[in-house]
């Protein structure tokens, strides 16, 4: 797996800092050895939709570029993408289409990503848009475009052998295990009636054959456990949450009355930090609308903390260790 840009740089910074503080005594060393921060880029464009209702492709591409460059600390979008993927790899784009048109990963965003991936050296035929069902992909507006493939798990099938971690035992999508070398996780930002909210971590339920088994107890610890399955840990390189339109209540179904135009993208190599940030965005919107917090509604997304715990270490949910970068 390629190290994600921010984490690697942060690690090197921490090492350098450790050396610098080495002579400063114990306290200085302890501070220097603190784990590196996880960067979450929140990229927004108030004019994303122009005069229309839907985001324009040029503005989306510009927003995507800004987000990726900030995430990887590069001043060229293609250099940023090359930190995530290598030429010759087959890259899966794990979209989320359960909500159908209106609450799925945006086609215009996926088109922009496909364009940049190809410019970064990924062949068109080596890009795969995938989700649980062919019908979900169709309802989200995804069809084969050029040589880019669209594959539902129902047609690709699942592996025969279980992958296990903790409370979870699942068969993994063959698109993940056999077709893709790398995966870009492309969730949407929305409320979820059982798990509180859903963004990066939960979107990977779309890689297993039995997600229905893992919703009890608000998905905790199941969501964290699924993200620990080895092929997912090996292959998911980047989490890029589509928050052009977000939903603060009534999810996961599409409920236009509870949607708002956030006009943003959340990008990170750390799915826990991204989900924590996404959760706060939803909570702020709920408060603004005079609604109960998710905790008060008995559905705080506790799985985020579980994903950060000592057993999982999938990332951080500590706001002091999250570098939120707004661009």
């Amino acid at each position, binding site marked *: 797996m390629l190290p994600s840009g921010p984490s690697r740089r942060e690690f090197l910074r921490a090492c350098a800092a450790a050396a610098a503080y080495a002579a400063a005594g114990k306290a200085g060393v302890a501070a220097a050895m603190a784990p590196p921060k996880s960067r979450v880029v929140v990229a927004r464009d108030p004019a994303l939709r122009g005069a229309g209702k839907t985001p324009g492709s040029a503005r989306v591409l510009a927003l995507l570029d800004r987000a990726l460059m900030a995430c990887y600390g590069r001043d060229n979008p293609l250099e940023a993408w090359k930190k995530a993927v290598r030429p010759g790899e087959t890259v899966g784009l794990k979209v989320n289409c359960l909500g159908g048109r209106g609450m799925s990963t945006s086609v215009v965003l996926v088109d922009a990503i496909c364009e940049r991936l190809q410019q970064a050296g990924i062949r068109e035929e080596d890009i795969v848009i995938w989700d649980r069902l062919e019908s979900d992909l169709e309802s989200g507006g995804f069809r084969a475009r050029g040589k880019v493939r669209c594959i539902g798990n129902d047609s690709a099938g699942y592996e025969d052998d279980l992958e296990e971690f903790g409370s979870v035992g699942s068969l993994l999508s063959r698109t993940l295990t056999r077709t893709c070398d790398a995966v870009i996780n492309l969730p949407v930002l929305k409320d979820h009636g059982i798990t509180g909210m859903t963004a990066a971590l939960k979107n990977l339920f779309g890689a297993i054959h*039995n997600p229905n088994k893992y919703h009890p107890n608000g998905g905790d610890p199941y969501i964290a456990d699924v993200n620990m399955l080895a092929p997912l840990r090996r292959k998911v390189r980047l989490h890029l949450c589509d928050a052009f339109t977000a939903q603060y209540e009534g999810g996961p179904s599409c409920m236009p009355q509870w949607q708002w135009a956030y006009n943003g993208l959340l990008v990170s190599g750390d799915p826990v930090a991204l989900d924590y940030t996404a959760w706060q965005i939803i909570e702020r919107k709920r408060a603004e609308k005079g609604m109960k917090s998710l905790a008060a509604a008995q559905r705080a997304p506790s799985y985020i903390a579980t994903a950060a715990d000592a057993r999982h270490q999938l990332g951080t949910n500590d706001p002091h260790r999250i570098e939120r970068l707004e661009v």
Partner: protein
Amino acid sequence: MGGADTSRREFLRQAALGSACAACCGWARGLFAAGAPPDDAQFIREAQFYEKQAHKKIKCKLCPRECAIDDRERGYCGARENRGGTYYTLVHSRVATAHIDPIEKKPFFHFHPGTLAFSLATAGCNVNCKFCQNWEISQVRPEQVRGEFAPPEKIAELSRGNACGAIAYTYSEPVIFMEYMLDCVDAGHKLGIPSVVVTGGYIQQEPLKKLCAGADAIKVDLKAFSQKYYTEVVNGELKPVLDGLVTMRSQGVWTEIVYLVVPALNDSDAEFRGLAQWIKQNLGADVPVHFTRFHPEYLLKNLPPTPVETLERAHQIAGAEGLHFAYIGNVPGHPAESTYCPKCHKVLIERAGFMVTQNRLKHGKCPDCQTAIPGKWG
């Protein structure tokens, strides 16, 4: 040379058992006409036992889980789906597996012994037992395994045509295909064929009463006698299962219980004793209880098979607590596979594995002391 005789008899029993299984068991896809894969649409019917709620949400009222399900989502079982605010079963007439088994394999030991059961399942289950032997159909969604279109009338005809004494709903969890099962029960009864249900018993009272009104026998897999085990191993709840057993008895449907004994997890003397006492107090001493042997499977491969001595301990405790019909299962040839008169203790039905090798019952009574033996003997 008593030892040699015993070994020879055991050998012959095992051979007989093997032959019986080879003849009776096995995937019965050949029972269904070959053809193109069936169309998904023919399996979909509006479900019973649910409530419509605001914003196209529904609440399932079939099992105690009471899944709250959004539009385009499914419940825990994976076999029922909310489509636009209406709840559908996806598995009506969608048979994932079918076999012709001895009824002793279910196991039913007090229901028409020595007969065959046309045994079928759809995909899906409302729990997720870590030891599941059939997880490849129970823990998948219907579309993830091939399904044969088999409407209830066809099941009844196949049962009759294959000389089966009953239709058995088994292998996965028949509660989740309740609508199909109830229709098959009716179709079978029209041809004089009874229905037997093999279930975890995790079901709400209203659908259970409807099932009891139609089914001729129910065997409940009581997986443990502690909520801890139900939480950690089964992903379910104990109390609704116990409540369901009481309802089955009060509704007059013939009931047997299986208790799969898993080493270190549900095999303490205290648990066996508590189970036996509860059964005697709440269901009566005549309910057969089968203590069966665990084999490592699915998510519980790190444990050994149950020692026979553990099963014998459970059997002994159940007898000491006053249960009249305790059995040991999955240990072919064990003496505790056979039925004994609770009064004179003579053997009444001798079994070897799933085979009945001798049945001495006369009109449901012990031929030696005339004690009536509870069950459905035909």
